[in-house]
């Protein structure tokens, strides 16, 4: 994990850095656990998976399974890849629910096309930027990683990769440029979402990649007090009356409470839960007379 000082990637390859001692930190250090879990939460949020649908996800650089545990808690099934045997051993001790693979992401993701509904990665991808063997060419490894990632995702699926790019404090980070260039070459669209850009400690970078047609990039979080504004914005063409917007009656999905869309959404949700629901007709959610 990169802090203000020396970056761990400069000291050698990840399989050596993430040894038993480092792995133990992920098991014991509550602050580390907290940060990793929060980032997993944000990454899953940015993934924009459909509500209440259990998905098959990929966790790149899953490590001890901290992020994976969050995915399990949210009802998803996941496969994790990591290059460090020590970290994977710790994941086994923690009884991580996902399937674990020992592998190098720079060699490609060994799955058939269209396997996963989404992919997250917490604090891992920046390791691809440093060549640890004479034969390593970072750009090639990044390209190999991104092309195989593109292939194993279902069409239209997203990949959200949280990373610590070098020189991120400066205006231009060549490392981030290198990474995004290779991702674009592989066919992805998307961009970087930056949370808390003004805080040196809290600043986090999420590379959001889309494998389908371009969509809106979510807004980064800010220290703004009314966090509802800074969260994911849904785009509607309708104007919401100021009074109703202030009273918080507009939901995340864009449907105003008690409106016809809200009624239809709720009925659909109940159908998915397997409950008996009346069919939708022209009368569904229509305005009734006041004395109804």
């Amino acid at each position, binding site marked *: 994990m990169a802090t203000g000082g020396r970056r761990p990637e400069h000291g050698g390859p990840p399989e050596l850095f993430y040894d038993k001692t480092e792995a133990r930190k992920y098991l014991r250090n509550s602050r580390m656990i907290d940060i990793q879990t929060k980032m997993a939460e944000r990454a899953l949020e940015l993934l924009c998976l459909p509500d209440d649908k259990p998905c098959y996800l990929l966790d790149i650089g899953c490590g001890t399974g901290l992020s994976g545990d969050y995915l399990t808690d949210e009802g998803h099934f996941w496969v994790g890849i990591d290059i460090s045997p020590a970290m994977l051993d710790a994941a*086994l001790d923690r009884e991580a629910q996902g399937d674990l*693979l*020992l592998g190098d992401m720079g060699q490609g993701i060994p799955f*058939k096309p269209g396997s996963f509904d989404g992919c997250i990665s917490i604090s891992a991808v920046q390791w691809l930027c440093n060549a640890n063997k004479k034969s390593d060419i970072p750009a090639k490894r990044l390209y190999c990683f991104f092309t195989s990632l593109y292939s194993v995702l279902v069409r239209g699926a997203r990949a959200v990769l949280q990373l610590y790019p070098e020189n991120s404090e400066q205006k231009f980070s060549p490392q981030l440029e290198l990474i995004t260039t290779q991702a674009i070459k592989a066919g992805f669209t998307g961009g970087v979402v930056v949370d808390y850009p003004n805080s040196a400690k809290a600043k986090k970078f999420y590379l959001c990649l889309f494998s389908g047609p371009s969509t809106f990039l979510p807004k980064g979080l800010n220290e703004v007090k009314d966090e509802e504004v800074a969260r994911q914005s849904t785009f509607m063409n309708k104007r919401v009356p100021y009074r109703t917007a202030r009273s918080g009656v507009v939901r995340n999905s864009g449907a105003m409470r008690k409106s016809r869309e809200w009624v239809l959404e709720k009925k659909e949700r109940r159908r998915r839960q397997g409950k008996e629901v009346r069919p939708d007709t022209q009368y569904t959610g229509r305005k009734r007379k006041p004395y109804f």
Partner: protein
Amino acid sequence: MKLLTHNFLSSHVKGVGPRGFPLRLQASEVRIMPVEFNPDFVARMIPKLSLGEVPTEPIQGYEQNEDFLRTMHHILLEVEVMEGTLQCPESGRVFPITRGIPNMLLSDEQTEA
């Protein structure tokens, strides 16, 4: 490693491409781990599986057949291969499985990069 994952795993040895699928599985030790049954998930995964020689049209209404879903759930999610090997059908490269974790690391010559 669950059998569901085995169904999606493919060999990424250099030059192999789509012929690297499916990996031949030889299991020497297997374990049954109970997993909470989620009919939605199983029903969605079934069309994505590669099941070898199987009639191309699945039985109609399999999503409602709970017995069928429970059986598939048991096979795909509750059977864990603990020790064994996976073999690439094209290159013959063997990936060992230890403590339930397949080792997919390739040597330099076998990597596309």
